[in-house]
């Protein structure tokens, strides 16, 4: 077994430390949500939005959980014992993140199918957009989180997320208000010329996600290779 495969396997065992049942329950919740509420008139759009949100955040929470385990009871020392070089430990973690995201997308696809059966239809384009949002959104979210998790302890991250996230949102809103005219013009231009072309939109989305992942991986490697365990 090569080093990256060993790292992925070890992270899988960490992720399922409390048993596979908890993972299955997590995967079963969104479809159950659709089955229970998806049939009501006018509710399916809300249900889809909630499920999108759930499936974007659950993979990030699972990935964060790996770091929480490492912060507990000297478990991080295991990373110093196993014969896996640090760079492969990081790459392995990004791969397990991708696997979890693919599972989330499959779960979302199942939810869309169930929405169609229970609620009587959804159009293909919005279904594909939903899948792309779940996959891309969760990857981007985790790509932002992972370097932070390598740099800070899980307790510090909670504080950072609470305060930092609010500050970032506030700053973005303030900037948007300050440059309202320019922002409106850019959004209108993108909407009129770029996002109407599906292939171009997909290309931009894929490129954006790829750049975010590459930058994130590079920062995580830099941090973890210098980290004292």
């Amino acid at each position, binding site marked *: 077994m090569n080093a990256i495969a*060993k790292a992925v396997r070890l992270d899988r*065992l960490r992720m399922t430390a409390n048993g596979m049942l908890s993972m299955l329950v997590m995967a079963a919740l969104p479809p159950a949500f659709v089955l229970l509420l998806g049939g009501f008139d006018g509710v399916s759009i809300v249900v889809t939005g909630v499920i999108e949100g759930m499936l974007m955040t659950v993979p990030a929470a699972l990935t964060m959980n790996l770091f929480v*385990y490492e912060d507990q009871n000297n478990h991080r020392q295991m990373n110093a014992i196993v*014969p896996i070089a640090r760079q492969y430990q990081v790459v392995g973690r990004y791969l397990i993140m991708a696997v979890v995201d693919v599972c989330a997308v499959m779960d979302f696809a199942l939810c869309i199918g169930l929405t169609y059966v229970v609620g009587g239809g959804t159009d293909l384009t919005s279904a594909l957009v939903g899948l792309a949002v779940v996959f891309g959104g969760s990857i981007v979210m985790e790509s932002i989180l992972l370097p932070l998790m390598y740099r800070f302890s899980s307790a510090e991250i909670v504080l950072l997320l609470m305060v930092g996230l609010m500050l970032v949102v506030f700053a973005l809103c303030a900037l948007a208000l300050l440059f309202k005219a320019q922002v409106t013009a850019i959004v209108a231009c993108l909407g009129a010329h770029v996002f109407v072309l599906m292939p171009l939109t997909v290309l931009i989305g894929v490129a954006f996600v790829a750049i975010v992942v590459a930058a994130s991986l590079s920062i995580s490697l830099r941090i973890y290779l210098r980290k*004292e*365990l």
Partner: protein
Amino acid sequence: MTVDKLQGVMQSTLQGSVPLALSIDGATKRYDSGFTLEDVTFDLPAGYIMGLIGPNGAGKSTLIKLILNMIRRDAGSISVLGMDNIRSEEAIKEQLGIVFDTHYFIEAWTVRKAGQAMAPMYPTWNQQAFDSYLRRFGLDERKKVKELSRGMQMKLMLAVALSHDAKLLILDEPTSGLDVLGRDELMDILHEYIEDGARSVLFSTHITDDLEHAADFIAYITGGRLYYSGPKDEFEDSFRLVKGGPEQLDAIAGQTLGIHRYETGFDALLPMSAAKKLQSNDMNLAIEPVLIDDIVRLTNAKEETR
């Protein structure tokens, strides 16, 4: 093992004719807190047990962390099983068995799952050996790690360390959670482990009783500096414990390596040569062989009492 034989081994390692399990040359680590592990140099020949001793905070764990590349080294080099510990980290760690003073597993894992997590890490993993150690240590596979006592958690780490044909065992304070029987059992296991002459043990402890019977070599670190490394018996033979009354303090002035004064007298550590002179001068002092504990205790006695 006799001092002469061990000195011969040391000589051979210098000439390069005995393979080294571990070679540390000028290893230095400086912390922002001010503590520095300074210029540590010693060798552990293959096939022997070395005790790494020193008081709490002396730098034993720092040295082990340097060997395992857990922390950045500021100077020096470390070679494990003939390979550089950073450049060949993976190859080295496949051949290392490691036991820390506290377990490193996820507490929710069962003993079985801990084994499943470790097995694929090592190409030489021997499941039969692991199962046999679990039986020998009385470890129930279904129990969660958090349900095990500290001693049993240590035994689980030991079972993992011994189940993949490791060429070098590194044990960091493994006996701190064990009772007397457990410590005896561990010493027996370590002796069995090095029987083939190809495997070695580096054993950090502050319970020096463990080393009296087990260790062939000693590396003694205090205040971040290496005080001694070499055969254990030579270490003990290099010093004598001198006991006397307050009126005899003048007789040993300027010769002690460490002294502990009481109202009724003193214990002092002297080099063997100085102790011999005192003996021949018929000073009526009690001059006794030392235990490792005495050396650690007295060399760490406060400066002003010397």
